[in-house]
């Protein structure tokens, strides 16, 4: 099978994630869309690793997984804190900081 198909798939996933970040209003869902984008990046890396016949891409993918896990920790901490004070995880409600 042509490995380039995986690049198209990854680009599609990345786009779905990016659109999700822009249109969804729940902070958790937005965050999941960001994770989808990161995984699309991982899929691209692994595919290029296969195309180039070189292992570095897979190593980067491992590091990305670790970094994404750290991001989940920090992100959920912030979202939970804001949920406890507002009883809502909607990013539209968070609008104190405007002119």
């Amino acid at each position: 099978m042509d490995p380039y198909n995986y690049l198209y798939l990854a680009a599609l996933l990345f786009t779905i994630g990016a659109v999700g970040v822009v249109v969804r209003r729940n902070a958790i869902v937005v965050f999941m869309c960001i994770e989808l984008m990161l995984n699309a990046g991982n899929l691209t890396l692994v595919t290029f690793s296969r195309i180039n016949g070189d292992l570095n891409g897979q190593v980067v993918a491992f590091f990305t997984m670790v970094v994404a896990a750290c991001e989940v920790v920090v992100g959920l901490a912030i979202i939970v804190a804001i949920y406890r004070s507002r009883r809502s995880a909607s990013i539209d409600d968070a609008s104190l900081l405007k002119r």
Partner: protein
Amino acid sequence: MGIFTSPILNYGMLAPILVVLAGAVAGVLIEAFAPRKSRSSSQLVLSVFTLVIALVALIRARGTYSNKAAMNSITFDGAGYLLQMSILIIAIIAILLLADSDKFAAAPTAAPGSDEERQAQVANIRVTEIYPLTLFAIAGMLIFTVATDLIMLFVALEVLSLPLYLMAGLARRRRLASQEAALKYFLLGAFSSAFFLFGIAYLYGYSGSITFAGIAAAITGGTANDVFLLIGISFVSVGLLFKVSAVPFHSWAPDVYQGSPTAVTAFMAAATKVAAFGAMLRIFYVAFAGDVWQWRPILTAIALITMVFGSLVAISQRDVKRMLAYSSIAHAGFLLSGVIALNKSGLDATIFYLFAYGIATVGAFAIVSLVNDASGEVTDLNRWAGLGKRSPWIAIAFSFLLLAFAGIPLTSGFVGKFSIFSAAYESGNTAILITGVLSSAIAAFFYIRVVVLMFFKDPVEDGTSVVIPSIYTRITILVSLAITLILGVFPAPVLDYISQTAFFLR
């Protein structure tokens, strides 16, 4: 089975980074084991001590440049040395601002107004986690400026960003706004790092290598698929432009600057800018230089829009922190023109400007944190009216830093702007030069408006006053003023030093 060969690390060149990381880990241990009473002071001593040791280690490593500091992942060269030095100096004076721990939430995890929070306030608990978080962020910044492979770059970006997201949410007063700032910073920051990662993947796909040298060689070779390169450059640029808050990726900056505790804003605004522009300089000068004709027009357009937009929108701001945020956006545009110049004088000018701007920014936010009323900091500009009559020294100091931002002669800002615009002129980019000078003029208008407001308007009697600064804040403000003045009056030694030292090992 391949034989595992252990990496060759040059500990002398890595020492500043390792010292800061060790200090951060020791800070976590203090959080875990030290009695609550002594934590605040021991954390402050530890952090300042760590940063000073790191600075000494950095100065000792000077001159021993190599692009194999950690195999091919870290290059320690003249530019890296100067950028790390700037970050450490800015960090030392910014971390002193954290010592006024009554600015930070007593119990950051408790909901605002809850019993838990009230108990923590009654017990006079001080948040001290902020020191190790700051040190981790500083370590990430130090790595970010010297990273020369894509893994290192991505990990450093996250190490510097993640602590900052948390620190943005730690304000003691107006906690909802502070948490909102943390949420916005986090979501948009994670969004942009996803773009960054996707760009990295395409750069790897283009060149088959994860090092900057490999990417540069692939661009010079010119046999690989150019579409991959363009996707890679543009997505990586989005990630970096977000970090430096260039238009159209600036929307987080005003909210985060306004909502975060002012001490955190000072650190973040100054040090992040140095780190992000440091990485940007290295990527564009080392990895992407061969493809300059493709990216220069777009970056030029972004620089022009950023300068003009930042300067124009800052005029209509009523909040001093938001005004400084828009001013930092305008400065990002000026700094971008140094990146675009892609010549030696552009490199020198950008490094000088970053240092001068960072130092002045820390001082300006330190002064903002002093203007208080009974309920906390006063950032509404209308209530700053007549401050010069009540607290002339603070008002004079703030005016001086604003004039430095505006680029008035005898301040560091003038020297910085002059050198960066002459570098742009040298590279033949007259559009940048003209727009830069015009938007500096627009920017000067709103800086001077604040000066007029402070000195020539009658004070409003609404309880706004300047608190007596603690000894730490006083040191920060005085150092910042002194460096801004010295760089403005006798810039030649520093400029010479930078032009002798700054270079990139390829």
